[in-house]
């Protein structure tokens, strides 16, 4: 037998999906109906408007990629405005 099943985890859970399921079950409503409320709360737990943080994360990966292709980040993406 191949190691195909090792590709998956037995007990993996998306935090967001768990919240959606819980609300749908508790309120006896559809997943779609649950998503609207749950997502609007969930996004409050995510750093969305932190531009400095976003830029750092993006630049870090760009540097990694540029190294992989032996170029400077600005040669690939140009200078940031």
């Amino acid at each position, binding site marked *: 037998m191949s190691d195909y099943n090792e*590709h998956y*985890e037995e007990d*993996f859970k998306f935090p*967001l999906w768990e919240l*959606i399921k819980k609300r749908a079950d508790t309120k006896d409503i559809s*997943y779609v109906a649950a*998503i609207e409320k749950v997502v609007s709360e969930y*996004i409050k*737990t995510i*750093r969305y408007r932190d531009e400095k943080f976003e830029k750092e994360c993006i630049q870090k990966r760009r540097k990694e990629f540029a190294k992989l292709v032996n170029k400077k980040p600005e040669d690939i993406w140009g200078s940031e405005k």
Partner: protein
Amino acid sequence: MNLNKAADKILETDVLVVGGGMAGCPAAVKAREDGLKVTLIEKANTARSGSAGVGMDHYPVGLMDYMSPREFLANWDNIKRETDLVTDWADPTRCYRLYTHQLWSINELERIGVPMRWNDGELRPTPGHGTGTPLLRVHWLNVKPTLATAMRNRKVEVLERTMVIDLLTKNGAVVGATAINTRTGEFIVIKAKAIIIATGSLGRCYSPSTPTPWKYKFLYHYCPASMSGDGWAAAFRAGVEMVNMDYTDIGILISDELSISFGNLVMNEGILPKIFSWDGQELPIKGMPRPLEYAELEKAGRDPIYYSIEHLPDDFQKRVEVCMADERPVSLKMAQDRGFNPRSHRYVNMTNRPFLFRTPAGINTDGYFKSTVTGLYAIGDATNGGHSCVNAACGGLLVGNDIVDFVKKAEDTEIDKAQVEAQKEIALAPLYVKDGTEPMELECAIRYICDRYVGLFRSEGKLREGMRRLGTLKRVFIPKLMAKNPHYLMRCLEVRNILDMAEVHIEACMERKETRGDCLRLDYPVKAPSLDGKLQFQKFENGKLVSCMRKLTPLNIEIGG
């Protein structure tokens, strides 16, 4: 013949919109707001049909943030000559109008009830697209129900579960259409002063993404299973010109039935994914490999390739989850049910083949979305360059606005009853066939021909053989199609459309005797300089499929700003 006897229902309207997706609904709303009588027919249920039926996580506003529309158009000829693309933008006027109205479209959508802003009341562009199209992140899981409500509130007449059969014409202009209710079998004649085709493009002449278990056998990652080219085929049979019909697209086709929301896997809100060969070597590919890149990997024995977002920090992992909840939440459920954790597992991509027509292909329209047949317009994926939700919605709103003038000047025209009778006979014929061909049998045969004889790497011999085989299918099996009920009748009509468009597709592939962009000819492996700046067109004229190549339309608008 009496028209009342031929039709179960006769409707009269100013504007008939065919297709209730991201282009059709805004067009219908806008035309209705302008005081026109509007009828929209939708093959499925408007509240959840079309590409946006599963929700949408992005609205890609803007052209390129390093080039204004004015600069873009000033460089129009150079861009088209130098680029490897087969011109997404056949008409620079339309292109310019779309790009300069995208911000307007945000306001218009908000006004009709579509949420554009986040909880804090602000729009939210995603970061990190230095030289790409900026995306506006939107929570649009319910964008289609919202648009359906907007139409209902404005008293647009919506005929759900109704499929267009063919268009009715007189003296080179459209005067209406025939349609069928796919539940009741009711045969409907709709008299209209103008018609807007908004049925998307075509995906079903190629096999779906993955050979999946039966209940997912229609799984297409990028297009809904409803995309059988109905609007294209009806318009083509009515005499419109099609453009770039050799251009099929590839995409990230993820196995294990794990779908994604469009905005997350490659974009990841600005963080590049990592791409690995099967043996774990990271590949120097930015975004998605193009066909030739993938073919090289395949030749070297390095595929399948794997997309990874394991490196994304926690906040971005959560953002990806939210993207999936906004667009295709079923993918969250399916991934969890399978134990697929994107923080530690990789998405496998092992295909390199066409699977749908996309941006450059479609009905040829001018800067005002008018086709070559008077009174017939096309928007969204149905027309060249109207692609993506932003151009679909923006184009729909523009046409809904522009069409008033045409309708006011349009003369009342009689419908040709013989034309109605002929269309009815063709459409209903499968109901009377016993022991014939199932529509899915024929559809699979067409897919096989397109997969095997067209594919990505094309050559004259294969294309000719594919065309010959399609001809045989048409001659032998179309008359044998059988339908046990109106639903199956819809399938028969779909397969007729798929077959007609597959023929146009192969004709277009044969016509392009060069390799350009992703249109790859093994027997003509280089670009033909004589075809720079030219597009190819197909048209049904005097019972024949006619092709030609000609130059891009010049800009026909005063550039402001």
